[in-house]
């Protein structure tokens, strides 16, 4: 098979797999609470149901409200084109790197935040303000983690980064990757709206961040938003899997990471919103430490 065909197939399969990973975490949580949890088909049926449903749109909504789901979905797919999943080549790897990835995700988030305020409810504005508050802190941490890799691999391209880390023995890079793993795990928790930061399962006005923004959406648009959110979550799992464990079977790695994230979700309580910056500060400091550690340890005598 030609590389281009494989990389297109990769993006399509990721779109198909993303709800499955969400299902796995839901099932884990169900098992921990003595529930059966949803069946595998349920996440897909939910999406299909939402795609068929009628939409209710706020009277005050402008074009931003209608454009935002499409911008979010498109930018998430573009971002998925930059990340190596199970095939080492990426679809858009020739055109962009880790920095573009971060800002494609930021673009989608920006539009959703605008749309939430556009609909004219107070919850939307609150959600947007919270999301922007958190993302302004996570973005530097994520970028710094990528830069810590870049110092070692001398590239910002994700596919070259993953390939070059894969070609080295694990013990040679362990001292700094261990710290970046911690940083990126925290970033993953924030970005995929998991429990220490945000609760994906409730609509409780005091605690919700992501849910508050998409409260006004229904039908097709909601399906697009939910789906791109699932893709973004899988995208972060794949980044973790491919950058830190350059061996083994892809699906196994992703589900192992989902297990880890689910385990964290089961065993921790949601943080108060104003405690979340402390968590993100830890991610930031870990990434910075790993960057500095490379300077210290690789220092020529």
């Amino acid at each position: 098979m030609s590389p281009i065909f494989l990389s297109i197939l990769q993006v399509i399969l990721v779109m198909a797999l993303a709800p499955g990973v969400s299902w796995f975490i839901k099932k884990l949580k169900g098992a921990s609470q003595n529930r059966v949890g949803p069946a595998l088909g349920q996440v897909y049926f939910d999406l299909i149901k939402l795609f068929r449903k009628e939409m209710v749109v706020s009277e005050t909504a402008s074009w931003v409200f209608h454009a935002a789901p499409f911008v979010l979905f498109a930018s998430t797919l573009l971002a998925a084109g930059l990340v190596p999943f199970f095939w080492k080549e990426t679809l858009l790897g020739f055109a962009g790197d880790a920095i573009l990835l971060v800002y494609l995700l930021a673009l989608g988030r920006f539009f959703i935040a605008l749309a939430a305020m556009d609909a004219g409810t107070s919850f939307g504005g609150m959600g947007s303000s919270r999301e922007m508050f958190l993302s302004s802190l996570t973005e530097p941490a994520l970028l710094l983690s990528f830069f810590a890799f870049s110092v070692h691999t001398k590239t910002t391209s994700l596919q070259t980064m993953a390939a070059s880390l894969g070609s080295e023995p694990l013990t040679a890079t362990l001292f700094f990757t261990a710290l970046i793993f911690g940083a990126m795990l925290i970033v993953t928790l924030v970005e995929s709206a998991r429990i220490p930061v945000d609760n994906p399962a409730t609509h409780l006005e005091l605690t919700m961040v992501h849910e508050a923004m998409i409260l006004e959406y229904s039908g097709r648009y909601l399906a697009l938003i939910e789906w791109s959110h699932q893709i973004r979550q899988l995208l972060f799992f794949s980044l973790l899997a491919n950058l830190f464990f350059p061996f083994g079977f892809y699906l196994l790695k992703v589900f192992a990471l989902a297990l880890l994230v689910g385990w964290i979700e089961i065993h921790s309580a949601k943080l108060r919103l104003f405690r979340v910056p402390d968590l993100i500060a830890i991610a930031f400091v870990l990434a910075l430490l790993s960057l500095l550690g490379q300077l210290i340890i690789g220092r020529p005598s």
Partner: protein
Amino acid sequence: MSADLIPSLIHLTGMLLLAAALAIIASPQLFACIRLYAAHSFLLAATTILVACHEGVTHLWIPALLTLLLKVIVIPQVFFRMIRRLGIRREVESYINIPFSLILAVALLFLSFYGTAHLPGLSGVEEREFIPMAAATVFWGMLMMATRKKALTQIVGLLLMENGLFLMAITLTSGMPLLVELGIFFDVLVGVIIMGVFVFKIRDAFEGIDVDDLTVLKG
């Protein structure tokens, strides 16, 4: 493989030592703070053992085991006991908030990194790596002592400083004479006990262990 494995493990424990020390600074609860101090000491013992294996210095095993016994088990227990007797729950109060103290800590790490860049007489790889780390740990201990309000967290800061000095001694000299090491350990233990007594005295005199209250002693 084995020749390659030990240096990389030393690197890893070194980085984890830094991370654990930062976690001590960042932790909002006293219990967590002390457990993290135990973890930091455990990593210190691990580093010592790894250095002992790497350099083939067998007498380093004794300080490593003493670290394990004293700093991982005894001193945290003394602390927990103090906390129980003082009847306090969460007592980490700081003059500056946690993110800012983390930023200060990283700035101090940079300072120690560039400050020790041109020290003469350092040859081995480990020495060059661990000098900035150990110096940073000492600085962080000082930071904790300077910015915390409560006496107990200030003691943790002092112990963190001592751990930094120990790290420097281990990696720089492959271990001091055994008698000196034993003396230091004894010092630390007695220091902690004396400070514990001191904390109780502060509590009795001021009905709290906020060292701010000590300023009223001025004439």
